């Protein structure tokens, strides 16, 4: 798991958005969210000591 990956993708999406590449920025932005959720599953799925 590469923690810096969503930051690399986020920066790429930002630069694409700034340059006016709307479709590219949206695709990379969505890819960033996918990685964000995958990393969240990795870090936040062990059992909690609380009753939810």
């Amino acid at each position: 798991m590469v923690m810096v990956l969503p930051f690399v993708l986020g920066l790429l999406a930002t630069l694409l958005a700034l340059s006016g590449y709307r479709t590219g920025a949206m695709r990379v932005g969505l890819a960033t969210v996918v990685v964000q959720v995958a990393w969240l599953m990795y870090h936040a799925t062990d059992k909690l000591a609380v009753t939810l």
Partner: protein
Amino acid sequence: MPRLLDTLALGGICAVLLLAFYYQFALGELPCPLCALQRVGFIVAGVGLVLNLRSGYSPGHYGLVLLTSVAAGAASLRQIALHAIPGSGSYGSALFGFHFYTWAFVGYGALVAYTGLALLAEGNRPVRDIVHDAGRGHGTLANVACWLFALLAAANMLAFAVECGLGPCPDNPTGYLWWPRGG
């Protein structure tokens, strides 16, 4: 008016990222993996707002803001739950009585509420006005906010590369992997 509100929202995200950097570098509080995922949320939300400011309004841009706000809000809620039990400690400093993961959750709630209101407002505008807005110049304030945001996104990428290298961050980081302290 929506452009001004998007600019202000982007400025708010920049302020959050700057504050996180202040606590990281001036006060020496290293971000944990869940903190990193919360920062990613603010960065992707900012991308949606930059798209509105640079390419014109689209509900899809707000969709990106919503999706990442829900994902990052889940990360902050998880961190709140980790420290909800009395005696389970906390992570980092508190600001005005709340820790940053709690403030992040409030921030994502605010972003979701803002996005809902913006979609309602834009949904009631005639399409010709929205198209007209998209063709307008970027404006100095919007440009400053966009470039400051890009600078902060790049700085975050560098900061996490230096802290974690090309692997996972430890749950309780104590130093920078690529910036070892001299002994």
